[in-house]
């Protein structure tokens, strides 16, 4: 037991990331699989409690905190990290890219095993940096998207930091154990925390980075990205609001519908999947917002299941892109004939994410929807059901165009051996957890002698089948109009230009107003000295003569400039001293 807690898990993942550039591809990736894989047994076996309670900047912090929530997160983060590294190896990712990816995984693991807000936010900020590097590494269009990503996460991180500092001012400790969630003097601190974390989980309106960034980098990088940032956000949201919050439930419902709707309209395969991250995270946020034991367990179950099937989806779509080089549904089709294994894995993942009975998504999604119904949150309930229909619809669309209808000209081979291993092992888990919900319940938090929820009742199964039927009908009706839709603008079409022009206006404003102050000050000084030297001209000018040539001279003598001259500097100095004396003596 001692050995398990000797080193916090993020240490060895980060260590391998640092070694990566020095090693060969084979050895490096093998070590990467090992380091992330080891997190699984460590998370399972480490006894609950706060290990590594130390002082950081003279505050009490806990670097390795194990409870049922962080255990679940560590378990799935480690497992999928290993799968994703394996997939990276098979998809010809460079050592450098996998090294960035491992720093990203390591910091995420550090974040979920944090036992206090300070450590959490520390890793949170590092995650923003490392994931940006992972996106940037691909170059091209990914660089600009990475920039927007970094800026948005910078803002989100600052909000979280502000909330945490405020929380500290109230509570006097950063430790999770010191309070129940985020505590503040008023609702403002809760809003700060929710919005700051909301950037990471993709609240409607704050989500645009998600479909903007995730489709752009290397296909293996997308597999990493789709797992860690948003799920760490869900975990942090639980830490901030362990007892739920009604508004979160509504926001979750809105995300589920909005994400699914936007997804239906997409042609770019990875962009479609990215919108589904928002939609699925909506279910988790709704679960946390509802806040009952079953709902929270459902939310964390959904985190666990979602990571499985969403990474599987990104892997299958990644294989399609890897083999064909095409990103858009317009240019692929009928691939099921050439890539049976990939298509099979896709079908499993699609049925899981859509929540079809017999697959893992059905279990956890059902828990959240049932709790919404049980707590009489009718609006949330309908939103979550509607999101389910949208999910069916868009995955029928994706499967239809990519794997069934039409044909792709040119040779296509199925996934290579290691890719198959990665995909099939995850697909098997999706089915296992679907058929044996108790296996999932065993690792969910809040499970003291089972949940008050039965997965396979007549009602639940019928509900799942109806949603599927609605999806099929919807697809049949919407197929024609959907073909004609081009690229649909999202909210970033508004706020990217807004931010750009806003910043430019700000910079311009500062420059211009400084220049105006500069001009005014110089004008006054110049006026005073001119008046002293030749009062007659000034008097004459005041009367109204010689106005035209005088202004012309002024402008050439004092060109607009940010550089204050020596005279201006002294004038400013005098002005400040005057203001200071006036304030202190006269007031």
């Amino acid at each position, binding site marked *: 037991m001692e050995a398990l807690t000797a080193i916090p898990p993020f240490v060895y993942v980060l260590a391998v990331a640092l070694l990566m550039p020095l090693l060969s591809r084979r050895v490096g990736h093998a070590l990467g699989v090992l380091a992330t894989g080891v997190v699984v047994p460590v998370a399972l076996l480490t006894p609950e409690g706060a290990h590594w309670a130390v002082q950081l900047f003279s505050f009490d912090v806990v670097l390795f905190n194990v409870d049922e929530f962080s255990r679940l997160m560590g378990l799935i983060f480690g497992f999928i990290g290993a799968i994703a590294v394996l997939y990276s190896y098979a998809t010809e990712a460079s050592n450098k890219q996998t090294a960035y990816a491992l720093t990203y995984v390591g910091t995420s693991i550090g974040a979920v095993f944090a036992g206090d807000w300070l450590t959490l936010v520390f890793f949170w900020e590092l995650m923003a940096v490392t994931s940006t590097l992972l996106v940037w590494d691909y170059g091209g269009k990914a660089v600009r998207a990475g920039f927007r990503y970094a800026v948005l996460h910078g803002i989100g991180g600052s909000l979280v930091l502000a909330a945490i500092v405020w929380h500290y001012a109230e509570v006097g400790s950063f430790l999770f154990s010191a309070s129940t969630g985020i505590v503040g003097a008023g609702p403002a601190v809760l809003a700060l925390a929710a919005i700051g974390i909301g950037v990471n989980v993709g609240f409607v309106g704050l989500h645009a980075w998600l479909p903007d960034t995730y489709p752009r980098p290397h296909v293996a990088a997308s597999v990493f990205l789709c797992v860690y940032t948003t799920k760490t956000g869900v975990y942090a949201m639980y830490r901030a609001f362990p007892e739920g919050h009604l508004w979160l439930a509504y926001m979750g419902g809105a995300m589920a519908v909005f994400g699914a709707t936007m997804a239906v309209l997409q042609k770019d395969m990875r962009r479609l999947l990215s919108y589904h991250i928002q939609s699925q995270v909506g279910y988790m946020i709704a679960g946390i917002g509802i806040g009952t034991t079953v709902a929270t367990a459902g939310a964390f179950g959904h985190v666990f299941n979602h990571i499985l099937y969403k990474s599987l989806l990104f892997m299958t779509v990644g294989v399609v892109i890897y083999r064909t080089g095409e990103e858009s549904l317009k240019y692929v089709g009928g691939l099921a004939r050439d890539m049976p294994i990939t298509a099979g894995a896709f079908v499993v993942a699609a049925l899981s994410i859509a929540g079809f009975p017999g697959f893992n998504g059905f279990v956890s999604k059902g828990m959240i929807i049932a709790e919404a119904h049980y707590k009489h949150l009718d609006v949330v309930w309908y939103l979550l059901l509607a999101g389910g229909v949208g999910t069916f619809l868009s995955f029928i669309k994706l499967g239809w165009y990519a794997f069934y209808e039409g044909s792709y000209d040119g040779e296509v081979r199925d996934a290579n051996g290691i890719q198959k291993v990665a995909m099939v092992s995850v697909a098997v888990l999706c089915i296992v957890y679907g058929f044996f919900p108790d296996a999932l319940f065993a690792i969910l938090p809040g499970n003291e002698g089972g949940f008050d929820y039965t997965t396979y009742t007549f009602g639940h199964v019928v509900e799942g089948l109806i949603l599927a039927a609605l999806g099929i009908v919807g697809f049949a009706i919407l197929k024609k109009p959907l073909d004609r839709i081009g690229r649909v603008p999202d909210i970033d079409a508004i706020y990217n230009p807004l931010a750009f022009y806003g910043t430019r206006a700000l910079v311009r404003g500062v420059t211009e107003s400084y220049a105006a102050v500069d001009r005014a000050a110089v004008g006054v000084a110049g006026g005073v000295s001119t008046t002293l030297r030749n009062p007659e001209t000034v008097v004459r000018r005041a009367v109204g003569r010689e106005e035209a040539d005088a202004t012309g001279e002024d402008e050439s003598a004092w060109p607009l400039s940010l550089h204050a001259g*020596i005279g201006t500097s002294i004038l400013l100095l005098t002005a400040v001293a005057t203001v200071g004396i006036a304030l202190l003596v006269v007031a």
Partner: protein
Amino acid sequence: MNELLPLLVAIPLVGAVASITLGSWSDRLAWPVTFLTMLVHVGLATAVASTVYRGGTPLATAVGGFTPPFGIELVVDGLNAAILVLVSAVAVGVLVYARRAGPHSVAFHTGYLLLVAGLSGMTITGDMFNLYVFLEITGLAAYALVATGDDGRAAVGALKYLLVGTVGASLFLIGIGYAFVATGTLNMADLAEKLATADPTLVGASFALVVTGLAVKTALFPLHTWQPEAYASAPDSVSGLIAALVSTVSAYALARVTFSVYTVDFLTSSAFAQEFLLGLAGISIVAGSLLAVMQTEIKRMLAYSSVSQFGLVVAGVAIANEAAVTGSLIHLVGHAVMKGGLFLAAGALAVVAGARTVEDYDGLGARAPLLSAAFAVLSLSMVGIPPAVGFVGKWYIALGAIQAESWPIAVVILVSTLLTLAYFLRLVERMYFRTSSDDVTSSTGTGATAVADGGDDTDDGLTRPSAGMVAVVVVAALLAVGLGPLVSTFEPLLEPTLETLLQL
């Protein structure tokens, strides 16, 4: 140990004389003499600081046996012991850098030691008029050092620095005059007692003038106008030294005067005293960052960044609670290491690739991997990425602002972090994620001009940074990261001093 305090000023003064005497005999002796003097100085400074921190009580001595309040007193407590070591250590580091990077003139080395003497004096003096004297010595040495760059731009920059700096120092002197009229004493400890009962009008006017004078030297917006041009036009070694130390010691003097002369009681009870300081600081933080974002020349950008960072430090002083003042001291030390390192790194990168503007930094990561890495680490530390020292300082100041419930400053600090991110991230992105446009041309022969440009800047045809130059930059980067975690051991050492200063 007490009686050794005057030596902290005397040693560099004697060294200055020695370097000019021996230097006039042979140019080659100037550097070794300067270096030897600095080694002795750093040893003495470290010994003094460790005595202070271990003993927990201040060291004090009356110069020449004239007892205070009439004689001049030198005092070292927990606040200035750290600054003293910083001054000494940074000066040694920059000197190592300057061995190859230049300037190599005897005048430079003499001016260098005079500057160290002035800075050490400002740091340890316990007398207001003596502070003014050392402020002038520091100023004059700094003007002369800026002017050692041998183009016209440096001369104009130095002249502007001289004029604005002198007016600032004069205002400071007038402020001391008012305090003297009000109390009849110049000793800091004595002033603190007597100012409490003196005429509030005189005290208020004196405070306003003293703060304005020191704010010029610290380069707070809008009194910073001398600073970007002086830093940008000076030789790289001089920019590094001045950026790291002169404003830092002035900001320290501002803190010392505020707490040890006017006292926290005056700051909080007197109308608008705190608001005046906070206003200057807040405007500085925002305006400095915005101006830095707009710059295209690297050294000007770094200079404006200093305006913003010293705004933070002064904000901490103005808030005047334990967390904020701790943060100010940490940020003073941390900023000196980071900004000095950045200027030296910028100088070394200019030697490697002729890179002087933001555009020139495209693809530098591949051309000068070690220097670029150090530059990137220092930049990120400046932004405040934990666990670097830049984060710790900001963190304490922000915490202090929130404890004091001065929300505008707390917001300003968070916003400034974003702006700092904007101008440093831009460079990091250029260095690592773009390819240099020069790469294509350098193979066709025009790359040689870039190298020649670098050589011109350092006036002796230096085409590659020496191992010493790179080492100094790398050590600065390591310190920027390494000092952060050390803060928790340093903080308890500071507590007795803060209790006295803040009258807790």
